[in-house]
């Protein structure tokens, strides 16, 4: 029970931290990091919600897995764009 609440608070806290950072930073890399932390927080919430007496629900686990893979793809695109923006600025 205590563990559950601890991780719930972690999930909510990660979401809050990430949103705060996203709202207050104009830095490209920080925005990428913030979005990733936000996603981790949401995943934590999904898993905490899926906990039950007979183990953790497999469906939210699948959701989280999908979310992780989606996010790495998006992150790669974000970083590629950010690098090109920096390059163009240098030129």
């Amino acid at each position, binding site marked *: 029970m*205590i*563990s559950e*609440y*601890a*991780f*719930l608070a*972690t999930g*909510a*806290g*990660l*979401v*809050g*931290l*990430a*949103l*705060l*950072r996203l*709202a207050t*930073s104009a*830095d*490209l*890399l*920080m925005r990428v*990091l913030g979005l990733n*932390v936000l996603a*981790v927080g949401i*995943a*934590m*919430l999904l*898993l*905490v*919600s*899926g*906990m*039950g007496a007979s*183990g953790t*629900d*497999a*469906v*939210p*686990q*699948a*959701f*989280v*897995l999908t979310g*992780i*893979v*989606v996010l*790495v*793809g998006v*992150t*790669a*695109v974000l*970083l*590629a764009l*950010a690098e*090109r923006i*920096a*390059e163009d*600025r240098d030129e």
Partner: protein
Amino acid sequence: MLPVFDVVLAAAILVSAALALWVRDRIAAVSGFLVTGLLVSLSWLRLGAPDVALAEAAIGAGLTGALLLRSAHRIPCAPSKALPPSLWCAAGALAIAISGAIVWTVTSFGAAPVYPSLVADNLPESGAQNPVTAVLLNFRAWDTLLEIAVLFVALTVVIMVAPARPRTAPLGPLVQPFARVLLPLTVLIGGHLLWQGGHAPGGAFQAGAVLAGGAIALGLSGVIGSKLTRQNGLALLAIAGLAIFALAALAAEVLTGALLGYPAGEAKTWIIAIESALTLSIAATLFLLFFGPAERH
């Protein structure tokens, strides 16, 4: 004892995340993120989700961390403007409000998930013993197919945007922290996946990520020559995953009348076939996401 461990772990996650987000130094921030990821994956083991923990360690922390490290130096810091305190307070209040709403929503009485019993009832027919694999590749394979499509689109965009290729250096300063953390993990998880097989935690994504991770590490240290990455074949391998999955979905519909409905009794074969194709395709995709296209347009 364990609850105490969990509370400490939870606190550590928050602290490291806060560090990652607010520390000025780029490498420190990325390292903080990496540590957060690893701690999170540990916490997910504690939450009874080893598949996800594996994926988070390999992809969420590992590969994303590698990508961030690659880019950290190439993306200049935005001149940090001091935000007016009022804005800070507003943003903080909003963040706290949302966090509070989340906690309240999750802890309020909610209906029990409908899925566990459904998954348990249908697991024998699913062709997979691991319920997560059953969900991913059978019950909700449609999600997974679209997820592969996301990877496909991401790869297309990265190839189009074409960032500069990472410099390969035999274990240069860029690689060291990453290799130090990732290589042991790669070996560990790879071994785990091999050992447990298809019935336990693990699957195409984790395996693909581990393969990609190893390949990236070897690529960065110059072990895999740029010859391989210049081959068009790798890109074709990457996109083959989506094509094969889509064709399999349609083929299943021809056979059974249901999109992605595997023929009775053969689900396991279908799943293994799709998974092996996906593993290779995912590995190629992730590798190319890291290295980018061979040539710039």
